[in-house]
């Protein structure tokens, strides 16, 4: 089901507004007025924001409190909360949560909702500063009042006394204008009597009406600004960086309200509550309306996107009012990820999808969507009788392989590329044909889309030889080419930004010029052949700003952000690089030091060890020598001892001999004394002999004593030497031992130290390697950042760089835009609608789905047919076109298949196909289908009536399916139809002449036109009166006419 869009002056408007009222009043009647959440039933509360930094005298800031109920539902309970300032001298807080600071510094605000509590921290600074900044504070307010619109003071000549730049394009000039003393718009002496205020409140007659009133926040701000001197501000003032609306999304029910909170963020980190100064716009005001104070009220079920605007910045909030779930959401077997994502959305809105289409519906639909023509009766019979379970996907595959796929989609792409031999593209016959052939072949080969884009956007050469070179004959100048390429491949319309910026458009003139610069080198020159053009590029080229005449550098779409991001990236990379370089240098130094230390240590410790070794070895020798000496002394001592012992022996012998001799003497004397002469003689003789003996013994004794004394003397003499030698030896040994142990210690120490130094060195080397690696990484990052930035400066074919950017996997537009187009072609409506109008203010109806399709498309290598295949095989695509009770109001979430009137070419061809009589298009062989026409220059009233585009723009909506009376007249009574109907070679004629029974003939007519058999009711109606043989031709003609005029024929369903 489609919906009439309420428009300002539509004749439907009043009726729709009545019906909108009905919807609302139904809601009220049903007693759906939402009950306020009971604190006891609430799981928790969340306060937004929980922390804020306020700056300046106008620092009042609101709070929003959200209650989370048991089901996870979120509700605005701000109005039912208690707010308490921790220190009311620091900051007070009003009943509605509006915080007014009184002193600089930190403080807190306590929030309670029943037993639930939360705390907000507030930091205030510069409270004493009443400073204004015209650009940040005043101009956005004037803009939101509408002062600088085209029709008002923003017109090139201004209005009355005041001329402002269009949509704040030149804030300084605007300030000069407003404060120009000659204009007397501002009275600092009597601020209330400033003409600016008197006009804005319409106190003085104002062509623009009353825009604000005394006491309005906008009025107060302007007044306060004037009171404070109506200044422009300082160069160093914090700039307005972004605005943010809370909440970003919310699911609500009719009757429920949510007070939005809009915060403006400044470059100094401070934040300001601009809820009452921002402007709001709800895409579907019947779903949710919003007042100047930011109070949003849900009116009916549906979804709406609220766009918030301030100072040229936007933020948006998605409001979903799900239908009541009066029946459980069915469990559905899903075919794919696509279905999961679609069904998740439907489930969140309680929209129950339709059933899957019948085979008959699917058959006709998939033929029309994939190859643009109807199945023949034979093909229909075959498919309908096929019992394979996978026959649908089999059919999808076979259709995607047919050459008619390229025929049909060459029309779509021909529209986008504006292929036409005549006005406006004026490619001439040759250019048109070579372009069309290239396009057809690309589609037939399923050329990856990245390659397609590259061939197209970097084409050069004769436009009569290179098909894609003709691309550059269509757009007018670099801006025209950029606009064409952006619309075609990024789904972004830059044409609005051709001249100036727009308040609701994300893309600016700079974006337009930045993209245009990529095409600034493209030139064409004529040859001698009629209208032939050679496309080539110069080494350089430029586009300049229409006003400033400044040269614009190439800049990828998304312009400012990307350029800034790139610059930032370069700065960051430069910093990172220098840091890494520093680290690498330090690491190198420390590694070098470590190496040096190690080497020095190795040297010194080696010497020490060697020295020690030498000392040890000399000590060893000394010890050995000392030992030898000691041993010799010992030996000498032992010898002396033994000599002394011998002498003692001798002495003892001599003593004993002596004592024996004494004894003998004594005996001899005794004998002498007692003896006679004779005996005395003997005795004397004995005595003499004994005396002799004793003298000898005494002598021997004396000798032995002397000998002994000498030996003892020797012994005594030798004993200290031996002792000394022994001592020396012991000392030498000891010394040696000590040195040995010192050497061992030294060795050990050296080993330890070497190991230590080695560790240090290894670590140093490692960190050096890392630092070097990091440095080289940073270097690479830096190089690429610099390269990205210098794209602007580079010569060479800039178009190639543009293509690189377009087909990069992370390009935010290309894959999404391509996927979205295919989705729109097959499902009748883009996820972003219209499919070539991507911008932040036109959100996707199912972003997750779009992301998924895009990611899959990138992964597939930009494979178009694979994208088709995955969508065609989804359950979503195969749903019936018949809505049910729960989804009939859905027009965007694919809960059923949307009716699509056959396109001009589809319908013209379908008429030819079912009547069996082809149409002759001039210059082309008979039998050429309308879906095979290479451009839109063939004269055909029929095609023009049914919305064939002129191909004047690349925008798909130029192909229209608007209904008008020329169409119905054409179908009812045109020659185009009636000639074909009546032709005896045509279907009616052939059936009439055939042997088929009337029933069989009717089957054939139904299969041919509607790809199905007639129902019993239809048969009964047709045969209410029998078809006589004589009437066959006439009745079959009539029936064929009737079938061609049914909605079932005119629509793809």
């Amino acid at each position, binding site marked *: 089901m489609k919906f009439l869009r309420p428009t300002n002056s539509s004749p439907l408007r009043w009726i729709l507004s009545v019906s909108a009222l009905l919807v609302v009043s139904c809601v009220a009647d049903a007693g759906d007025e939402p009950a306020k959440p009971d604190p006891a039933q609430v799981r928790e509360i969340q306060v937004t924001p929980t922390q804020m930094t306020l700056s300046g005298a106008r620092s009042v800031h609101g709070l929003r409190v959200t209650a989370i109920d048991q089901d996870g539902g979120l509700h605005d309970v701000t109005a039912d909360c208690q707010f308490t300032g921790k220190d009311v001298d620091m900051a007070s807080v009003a009943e509605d949560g509006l915080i007014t600071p009184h002193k600089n510094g930190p403080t807190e605000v306590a929030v309670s909702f029943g037993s639930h509590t939360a705390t907000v921290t507030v930091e205030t600074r510069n409270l004493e500063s009443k400073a204004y900044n015209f650009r940040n504070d005043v101009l956005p307010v004037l803009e939101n009042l509408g002062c600088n619109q085209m029709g008002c003071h923003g017109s090139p000549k201004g209005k009355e006394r005041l001329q402002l730049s269009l949509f704040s394009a030149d804030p300084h000039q605007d300030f000069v204008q407003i404060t120009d003393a000659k204009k007397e718009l501002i009275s600092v002496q009597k601020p209330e009597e400033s003409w600016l205020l008197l006009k804005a409140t319409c106190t003085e007659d104002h062509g623009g009406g009353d825009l604000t009133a005394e006491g309005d926040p906008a009025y107060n701000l302007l007044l306060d600004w004037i009171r404070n001197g109506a200044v422009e501000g300082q160069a160093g003032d914090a700039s307005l960086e972004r605005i943010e609306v809370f909440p970003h999304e919310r699911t609500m029910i009719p009757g429920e309200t949510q007070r939005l909170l809009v915060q403006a963020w400044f470059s100094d980190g401070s934040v300001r509550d601009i809820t009452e100064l921002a402007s709001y716009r709800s895409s579907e005001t019947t779903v949710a309306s919003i007042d100047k104070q930011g109070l949003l009220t849900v009116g009916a079920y549906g979804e709406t996107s609220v766009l918030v605007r301030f100072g040229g910045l936007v933020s948006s909030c998605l409001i979903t009012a799900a239908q009541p779930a009066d029946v459980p959401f069915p469990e559905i077997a899903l075919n794919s990820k696509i279905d999961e994502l679609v069904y998740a959305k439907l489930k969140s809105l309680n929209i129950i999808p339709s059933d899957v289409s019948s085979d008959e519906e699917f058959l006709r639909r998939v033929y029309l969507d994939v190859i643009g023509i109807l199945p023949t009766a034979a093909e229909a019979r075959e498919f309908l009788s096929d019992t394979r379970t996978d026959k649908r996907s089999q059919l999808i595959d076979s259709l995607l392989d047919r050459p008619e796929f390229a025929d049909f989609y060459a029309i779509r792409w021909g529209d986008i590329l504006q292929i036409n031999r005549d006005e406006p593209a004026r490619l001439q016959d040759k250019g048109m044909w070579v372009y069309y052939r290239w396009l057809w072949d690309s589609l037939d080969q399923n050329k990856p889309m990245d390659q397609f884009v590259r061939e197209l956007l970097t084409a050069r050469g004769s436009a009569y030889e290179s098909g894609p070179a003709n691309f550059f004959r269509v757009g007018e100048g670099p801006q025209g080419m950029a606009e064409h390429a952006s619309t075609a491949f990024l789904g972004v319309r830059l044409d609005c930004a051709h001249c100036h910026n727009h308040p609701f458009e994300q893309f600016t003139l700079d974006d337009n010029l930045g993209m245009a610069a990529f095409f600034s080198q493209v030139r064409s020159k004529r040859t001698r052949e009629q209208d032939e053009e050679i496309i080539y590029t110069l080494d350089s080229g430029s586009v300049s700003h229409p006003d400033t005449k400044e040269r614009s550098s190439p800049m990828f779409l998304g312009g400012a952000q990307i350029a800034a991001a790139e610059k930032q990236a370069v700065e960051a990379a430069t910093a990172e690089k220098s840091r890494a370089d520093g680290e690498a240098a330090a690491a190198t130094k420390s590694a070098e030091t470590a190496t040096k230390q190690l080497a020095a240590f190795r040297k010194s410790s080696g010497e020490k060890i060697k020295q020690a070794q030498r000392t040890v070895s000399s000590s060893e020798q000394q010890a050995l020598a000392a030992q030898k000496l000691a041993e010799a002394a010992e030996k000498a001592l032992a010898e002396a001892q033994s000599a002394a012992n011998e002498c003692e022996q001798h002495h003892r012998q001599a003593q004993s001999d002596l004592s024996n001799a004494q004894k003998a003497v004594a005996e001899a004397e005794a004998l002498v004394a007692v003896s006679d002469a004779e005996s005395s003689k003997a005795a004397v003789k004995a005595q003499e002999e004994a005396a002799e003996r004793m003298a000898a013994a005494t002598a021997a004794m004396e000798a032995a004593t002397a000998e002994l004394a000498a030996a003892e003397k020797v012994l005594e003499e030798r004993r200290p030497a031996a002792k000394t030698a022994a001592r020396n030896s012991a000392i030498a040994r000891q010394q040696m031992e000590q040195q040995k142990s010192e050497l061992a210690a030294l060795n050990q120490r050296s080993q330890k130290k070497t190991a230590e130094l080695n560790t240090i060195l290894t670590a140093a080397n490692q960190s050096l390697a890392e630092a070097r690696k990091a440095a080289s990484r940073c270097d690479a990052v830096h190089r690429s950042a610099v390269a990205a930035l210098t794209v602007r400066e580079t010569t060479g074919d800039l178009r190639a760089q543009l293509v690189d950017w377009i087909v990069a996997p992370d390009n935010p537009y290309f894959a999404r835009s391509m996927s979205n187009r295919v989705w729109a072609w097959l499902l009748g*409506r883009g996820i972003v609608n219209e499919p070539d109008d991507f911008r932040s203010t036109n959100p996707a109806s199912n972003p997750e789905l779009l992301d998924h399709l895009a990611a899959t498309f990138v992964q597939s290598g930009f494979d178009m047919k694979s994208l088709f295949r995955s969508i065609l095989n989804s359950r979503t695509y195969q749903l019936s076109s018949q809505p049910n009770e729960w989804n009939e109001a859905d027009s965007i979430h694919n809960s059923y298949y949307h009716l699509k009137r056959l396109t001009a070419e589809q319908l013209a061809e379908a008429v030819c196909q079912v009547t069996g009589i082809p149409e002759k298009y001039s210059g082309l062989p008979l039998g050429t289908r309308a879906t095979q026409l290479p451009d839109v220059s063939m004269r055909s009233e029929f095609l023009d009536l049914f919305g064939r585009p002129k191909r004047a723009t690349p925008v798909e909506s130029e192909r229209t399916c608007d209904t008008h009376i020329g169409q119905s007249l054409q179908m009812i009574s045109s020659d185009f139809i009636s000639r074909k109907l009546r032709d005896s070679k045509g279907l009616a004629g052939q059936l009439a002449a055939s042997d088929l029974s009337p029933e069989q003939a009717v089957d054939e007519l139904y299969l041919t036109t509607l790809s199905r058999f007639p129902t019993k009711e239809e048969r009964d109606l047709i045969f209410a009166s029998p078809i006589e043989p004589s009437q066959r031709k006439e009745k079959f003609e009539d029936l064929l006419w009737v079938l061609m005029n049914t909605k079932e024929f005119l629509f793809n369903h």
Partner: protein
Amino acid sequence: MLHINMNAQSRRSGMARRDFVRVGALSTLGLSLPDLLRSRAAAADTSGVNAGTKAKSCIVLWMSGGPSHMDTFDLKPDAPSSHRGTFNPISTNADGLQICEHLPLLAKQADKFSILRSVTHPSPSHDIASHIMLTGNVPARGTVNPSYGSVVFRERGYTEALPPYIAVPNGHRYSAAGFMGGTYKPFSIGSDPNAKDFQVRSLKLPDGMTVDRLQDRRRWLTGLDTLKRRMDGDAELTVLDEFYERSYDMITSPETSKAFDLSQEEDALREKYGRNTLGQSCLLARRLVESGVSFVHVDRGGWDTHRQNFETLKGTRLPELDQAFAALLEDLADRGLLDSTIVLWMGEFGRTPTIDYDPRWQGGRHHYAKVFSAVIGGGGFNGGHVVGSSTDKGEEVKDRPVMPWDIGASIMTHLGIPYDKTYEERDRNIRLLPFGTSVVSGGMLNELT
């Protein structure tokens, strides 16, 4: 009016469309789309069609190519020969008003029209200039504005069996509805009213077809159009049905065939208009206006006289125009229709005041938009006056510039449609005309009322 989104790719839904308000609600109100198309008159007091409307209809005589102002309605006999041209001025039945000697019949009707001699706009290119003159708007990029006729169609809707806006014999690219969508395109009759057996294609029943047989087919179709039943209440199907009904009406109603039946005119009158495409187109325009059609666009090209300007004008264009335009004014006045019918003669621009005698051009004039003439009469615009003037050599506006939107605002006002009305297109509200904003303007044509 009916922004019917036939293939669900809406022309104008910049924002995601999330309209849960159901068209089905229409039937609950007991309204059907036929009512919608007809209810304009009833809704008029609320939809802003003013009371005090002076004109019921408007005929635009569109001289595609750009007629030379210096050789038609703004002759400069005192200019040097490099400018003057070969034609002389003649006096008319209006005091002091002179026009080209090759428009003698028109000279006798000068009390019924006034000449705007200071029309000016910025573009000497056919395409842009046509857009400017036919819509009263300088085209913004990406937006095509609706022609005056389409605006009237949208504001008035159907009042008769005939479509409210008809192009004879065919429309111009910018006589269509622009961003308002195809629904408000003029119905192009598509065949030459001067043809021997002139009949509007598609309105004529094909050979072998009778009204009875068509009715039989209709009955069958009603029974067999099952998709329609299944989707009851679907807006696009309903509106298509509406146009089918209107088509049957047009094909079968005697009123329609009568309106298009030039054979009902007396031969003398047909001769008076001129037996050529322009003449018979003007005659048909009168019949259509008489039958209640609000807006007729008569298209006659061939005014792009780069070559042999004087021969072309004198040979065919001027005599043909003289006859047709004079007859139309006189005929409308005779029937009392002139007071309620605006007749506006114009092309996209004038032609260069200097004559190009280069052998290539053999006395041609090229595109010139700085100043040129248009002619307006009837529907509350007094005749016999001249508004504004050009300089001596026809090169600049001398006084009282007339901007295209001044003309537009004036005729819209006479037709009872506020010129400052806005229409929604994508995210924007587009004003019907820039008149009344800060654009350059010479003001309404109040001199003529």
